[in-house]
């Protein structure tokens, strides 16, 4: 069988373009996405957004609360707020921050009075996504303040009186105000809370994800995600090489040799598996050399995940080819399935950020099982035992699909002899 596999490897070496594209794709995507988000090879890599805050409403309690929230420990690691004065614009011109947030004079009063209030943001034009994040965040704050002002206008007025009165208010007055606020909130529960709670949940998911990324690097994570998709395309390219051989007459010619059809098909399958492992190894070497990945604590777990994923990927593509009536159909089906699995399995969007509907079907994709497993092995020091389920799913899927695919390929291509 070796001459059959060797021949395909030699052919791939003689025409390396498609393989190089598959290697370059994840590297490029990692570089592009990582750079856009602002990660780096050293230190904390999740983007820390630097923001300057010029609070011209120094006496307003809402503006002070906003400044305090921006400087809170919860935002540490991804938001760095610096209180500035009039020199804010000058610092922005020097590119010292992603954005300058200006809280205008009378901001608190305007909110409490229910009149128009404006938060001004000066963006750093040399940055892309970070200032946009600040703008989006500010819009969220504005929405909250707007809703709060509309809902609690009267009560907030009373609160201002208490705060600005300079005396400690009577406990009974505070209690009455608290009761009134509670009643208002309860009355608005169905309208106000769902979106607020929704935002809060999304924030929590992001925080969890950020923690993982800041520890090990967003480049490595994106490389892992996109490599899985690239390996699926490598499998498609190598298994569908059968059609190329069919068109060139070489497949028919091979059938005149003493090699049985099943062996020719199995050799093509093993070639695809070998090529996938070669590409995977190259990507891993690049990832390590560039500092995007670190050698995991349990390398065997990572290797086994890679091998079983490649097995399952090649088997799946072989099955598709075996079921297809012709080359065109096989190409379209393979592409749709690879793209679908990549979208739902975490190769395009991190698993934690997938919408709930898509996340529900992730378990049915090969991408999910390998990305989930590798993420834990590479970034959380998980060992074989912790990714045993992932390995089992990929192995069983690979073996079952391989047996079915080989039988279908033999049946599908035996007709080539006719």
């Amino acid at each position, binding site marked *: 069988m070796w*001459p059959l596999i060797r021949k395909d490897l030699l052919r791939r070496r003689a025409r390396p373009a498609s393989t190089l594209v598959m290697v370059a794709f994840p590297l490029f995507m990692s570089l592009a996405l990582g750079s856009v988000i602002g990660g780096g090879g050293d230190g904390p890599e999740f983007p820390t957004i630097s923001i300057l805050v010029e609070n011209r409403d120094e006496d307003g309690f809402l503006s002070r609360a906003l400044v305090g929230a921006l400087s809170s420990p919860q935002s540490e690691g991804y938001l760095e707020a610096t209180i500035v004065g009039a020199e804010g614009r000058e610092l922005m011109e020097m590119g010292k921050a992603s954005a300058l947030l200006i809280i205008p004079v009378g901001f608190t009063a305007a909110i409490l009075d229910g009149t128009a209030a404006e938060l001004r943001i000066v963006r750093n034009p040399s940055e892309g996504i970070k200032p946009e994040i600040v703008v989006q965040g500010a819009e969220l704050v504005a929405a909250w303040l707007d809703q709060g002002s509309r809902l609690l206008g009267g009560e907030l007025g009373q609160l201002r009186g208490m705060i600005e009165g300079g005396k400690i208010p009577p406990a009974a007055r505070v209690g009455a105000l608290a009761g009134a606020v509670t009643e208002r909130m309860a009355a608005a529960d169905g309208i106000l809370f769902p979106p607020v709670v929704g935002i809060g949940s999304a924030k929590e998911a992001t925080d969890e994800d950020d923690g993982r990324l800041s520890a090990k690097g967003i480049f490595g994570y994106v490389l892992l995600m996109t490599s899985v998709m690239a390996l699926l395309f490598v499998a498609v390219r190598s298994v569908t090489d059968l059609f190329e051989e069919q068109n*060139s007459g070489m497949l028919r*010619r091979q*059938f005149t*040799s*003493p090699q049985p059809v099943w062996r020719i098909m199995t050799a093509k399958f093993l070639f695809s598996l070998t090529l996938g492992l070669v590409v995977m190894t190259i990507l891993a070497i690049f990832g390590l050399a560039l500092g995007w990945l670190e050698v995991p604590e349990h390398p065997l777990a990572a290797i086994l995940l890679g091998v079983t994923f490649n097995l399952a990927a090649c088997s799946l593509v072989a099955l598709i080819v075996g079921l297809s009536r012709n080359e065109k159909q096989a190409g379209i089906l393979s592409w749709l399935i690879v793209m679908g699995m990549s979208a739902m399995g975490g190769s395009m969007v991190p698993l934690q950020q997938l919408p709930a509907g898509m996340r529900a079907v992730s378990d049915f994709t090969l991408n999910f099982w390998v990305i989930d497993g590798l993420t834990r092995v590479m970034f959380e020091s998980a060992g074989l035992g912790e990714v045993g389920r992932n390995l089992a799913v990929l192995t069983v899927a690979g073996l079952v699909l391989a047996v079915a695919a080989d039988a279908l390929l033999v049946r599908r291509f035996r007709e080539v*002899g*006719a």
Partner: protein
Amino acid sequence: MTPVLEVRDLRKVFGDLVAVDGISFAVGEGEIYGFLGPNGAGKTTTISMICGLLKPTEGEVLVQGLSVADDPRAVKRRMGVVPQEVALYEELSARANLEFWGGIFDLRGKEMKDRVAELLDQVGLDERASEPVKNFSGGMKRRLNLAMGLVHDPQLILLDEPTVGIDPQARHKILEIVKQIVAKGRTVLYTTHYLEEAEDLCDRLAIIDNGCILAEGSVDELKAQLGEGSLLTVQGGFGAADLTTAASGVSGLQPVEIADGRGMLLVGRDGPGVSHALEGLFQAGLTFDDISIKEPNLEDLFLRLTGRELRD
């Protein structure tokens, strides 16, 4: 002696189409057996059944006494197939192509190296053995295509139109190689629709059309089926019936193929001769625009057997 190749009542039906209809023949050691017929006659289908690519609807193929149906792997080891289309890996070198093919016939090490070198020399590609095949001319590819079928030194070689689409020089080279193979005692089944090749190369020939063997024998035996003499071909404004009637009145003149405006007649060697025959036809009132006289060949026999020309 057991023939190297024996085909018995071979038949292949695709739906309503009978592609091969009960063919039988045998080829001995060191013999070149030709399959001469137009495109679509059933030559490639027959080859496909012999080499095990197609399962016959009926009949049997034996190679050195082994049945293709019962023992395909053993038969395939004894057989080299050179397909009609050039089937090579264009991105690989000539040497890599031959090594791959040798590899799947279990050649290894020095045996492989020596055999590949010998073949590259034989087909005249030794100086360009390391170049990708995509850089080769059509003739070079044809020669390599032939060499691929010989790499495991098979006893029986099936050559399916190996000279299609190449220049005369390259064709001559390929025919020379085939003769060298046979000189080593190998057996060749050679399909072609080129008359000159069949006449030049084959020890025996089968003329095939519509899946049937119409005639079989050596070139001389087949020509003899037309009779001894010269072929007189006439063209003009006459009808087929007029020429038939006129020819029947001329002694020593046999109709071979007659149609409106065209006729082929055999002037017997022992008869009164061509001039006498023409005089008889003129006297019958026929006039001709064109007259030609030649020795009969296989094309004429094919025309007589099928009513159409070989290249129709």
